C-alpha cells in the first residue's frame, strides 16, 4: 500500500504532425501494463498549473518502455502548449496508466468498427494494433490534415470522413459508414460528444454492441474527487446515484449504460 507514485517520465520525441496536433513519445515504466483506451494524467512543470491533463494513449511500445500521446494544443498559455514545447530529454510528472480501456475480448470473431473523430482519433490506433478481428477503421477529420492515416492503413481497412470533403466522405464518420455501406457487430468509438451521441443512437438502431470513450474535465484522475462524472441510465452501485466516474469507471463505457 502506498507504493505507487506520481512518476517522472522522460520525453523521447516530439513532433507536430498536423497544425496544432503534436505527437510526443515518453519513456515510462507505465508502458509495461498500459492498454488501449487508457489515459495518462500529465502534469506541466508550471507551478501555477496544479491539475493533470488527461491525455489518451495513442501507442504503447512495451519493449522500449515508451508511451505515445497525440494531443491538440488548446490555446496560448495552456498546459498542452507547454507540453508541445518540451524537447527530447525534458521530464514531466505523470500518473499512468489510468482508467479502463476498450474491452478487446468482446470483438473476437466479429467485424468491428473502430471510430475516431478529431482528437479522439489517436486512441483508436493502439486499439487497431491490438484487435485481431475484422477491423473497419473510420476516422473523422476537419480537413485534409488526416494525421495518423498511414499508421491506420497498416492496421485495418481505413475509411475517412472530412468536414470539408477534401478527403474521403464529405461529412462525419456516420456519413462515411453509410456511403460505404459498412456494417459491424461491435463498435469502439472515441471523439467529440455530438459524434458519440450519434453513434450511440446508430448502435441502438442497429442493435450493435457499442463502447464509447468519454471525456470530461478532471481533477484527481483516480476516482476520488467526483469531478468527471457522466449520467448513467441505471443507478450506479458505487455512487449510489445515476453517476459514474469517467476517470475510474471509464473512460470507456457501454453505450447503453450512459446518457450523453
Amino acid at each position: 500500500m502506498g507504493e505507487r507514485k506520481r512518476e517522472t517520465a522522460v520525453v523521447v520525441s516530439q513532433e507536430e504532425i498536423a497544425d496544432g496536433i503534436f505527437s510526443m513519445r515518453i519513456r515510462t515504466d507505465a508502458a509495461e501494463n498500459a492498454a488501449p483506451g487508457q489515459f495518462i494524467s500529465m502534469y506541466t512543470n508550471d507551478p501555477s498549473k496544479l491539475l493533470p491533463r488527461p491525455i489518451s494513449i495513442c501507442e504503447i511500445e512495451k519493449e522500449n518502455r515508451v508511451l505515445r500521446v497525440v494531443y491538440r494544443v488548446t490555446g496560448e498559455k495552456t498546459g498542452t502548449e507547454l507540453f508541445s514545447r518540451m524537447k527530447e530529454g525534458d521530464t514531466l510528472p505523470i500518473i499512468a496508466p489510468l482508467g479502463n480501456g476498450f474491452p478487446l475480448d468482446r470483438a473476437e470473431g466479429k467485424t468491428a468498427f473502430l471510430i475516431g473523430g478529431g482528437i479522439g482519433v489517436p486512441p483508436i490506433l493502439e486499439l487497431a494494433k491490438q484487435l485481431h478481428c475484422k477491423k473497419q477503421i473510420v476516422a473523422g477529420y476537419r480537413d485534409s490534415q488526416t494525421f495518423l492515416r498511414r499508421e491506420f492503413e497498416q492496421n485495418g481497412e481505413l475509411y475517412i470522413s472530412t468536414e470539408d470533403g477534401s478527403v474521403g466522405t464529405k461529412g462525419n464518420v456516420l456519413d462515411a459508414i453509410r456511403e460505404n455501406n459498412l456494417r459491424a457487430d461491435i463498435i469502439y468509438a472515441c471523439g467529440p460528444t455530438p459524434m458519440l451521441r450519434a453513434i450511440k443512437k446508430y448502435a441502438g438502431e442497429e442493435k450493435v454492441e457499442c463502447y464509447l470513450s468519454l471525456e470530461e474535465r478532471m481533477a484527481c484522475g483516480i476516482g476520488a474527487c467526483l469531478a468527471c462524472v457522466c449520467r448513467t441510465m441505471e443507478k450506479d452501485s458505487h455512487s449510489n446515484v445515476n453517476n459514474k466516474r469517467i476517470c475510474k469507471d471509464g473512460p470507456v463505457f457501454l453505450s447503453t449504460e450512459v446518457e450523453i
Partner: protein
Amino acid sequence: MNKMNQNPCLEVNIAGVTWKNPVTVASGTFASGAEYTDFVDLNRLGAVTTKGVASIPWAGNPTPRVAETHSGMMNAVGLQNPGIDLFCKRDIPFLRQFDTKIVVNVCGKSEEDYCETVERLAGEDVDMLEINISCPNVKEGGIAFGQNPKAAEEITRAVKRYAKQPVIMKLSPNVTDIGEMARAVEAGGADAVSLINTITGMKIDINRRKFLLANRTGGLSGPAIHPVAVRMVYEAARAVKLPIIGMGGIFSAEDAIEMILAGATAVSVGTANFHNPSVTMEIVDGIEAYMRKYGFGTVGEMVGIVE
C-alpha cells in the same frame, strides 16, 4: 530550541481524540480513502476525513464541475454522495482496517438533515464528526448556516444534541468576521473548528461568453488562497479556545507548519492530493524534519507561537 536530540512526538489531541500526527485530508478531495491506497499508506495519516455524506444519496451538480485557476482550482461538485446507509455499510468498515482516525464529514440541506445523519452515526464506529455548514456549491448545502452567526450557533447546538462523537464545525471564509463565526459555534457547543472551506469564485470562457462551471460559481482552493487561510486560522485561534484544524492551500510541510504556527493544532491537505496523490505522507515527514531541526518535542509547542 533546546531538545535537538530527542525524537519529536507528532501526536496531537483534538477534543479528546488522539491523532498519531497532525495531518488529515480535506473533505471531498479524498473520497473515503480507497482510491488513494495505491499512493498513500492510510496508516500514516493522523486521520482520514471523508467526503461529505447526507441522510440520503445526492446526485450533485451537472458538469463541468471543476476549473483550473492560477495556482488554484475551483470546484462545484455539489456534494454528490451515496447517502449515509451505503456509507456506513461500505466506507466505515473499509477505513476501520487502518490505524488512523475516522472523521466523517456531514452535509445537509436542513437542520433535520444534519441531525438525522449525526444521529445515525452516533451508533457507528467513527472517531469524530465534521459538520459542513459552508459548502458554497449547493443552495442549501449549509452555507446558509455558515454565513450567519446565529444560525451557525443553532445548528451546532442541534447536532450536538444527537452527536456521540466530538463535533468539528467547518467554517466558511466567505464572511466578514471569521472570529465571530468561530465564537458562535463555540457558544453552540462545538468541540473543534476547521477552516477554511473554499472561497466562492467564478470563471468565464470569454470565447463562448459562458460560465466555465455548470454551477456558475465554484469554490476556490489551492496555494492561491493559502495566505487567506493562514490569516483566518490566526484570527479564529485568537477568538476561541477550541482546537483548530487548519486548511486552505497546503501543498507542503512548510505550508502546514505555517498553519500550525498561526494557531492550528492539526491541518487538512486538500487540493494538493490532486497535484500529487502521495503528498500527505511527504508532509508528515516534513513536519517531523522541521521539529527535529528546531528542537520541538511536541506539535503543541509550535501551535500559535508566531510573533
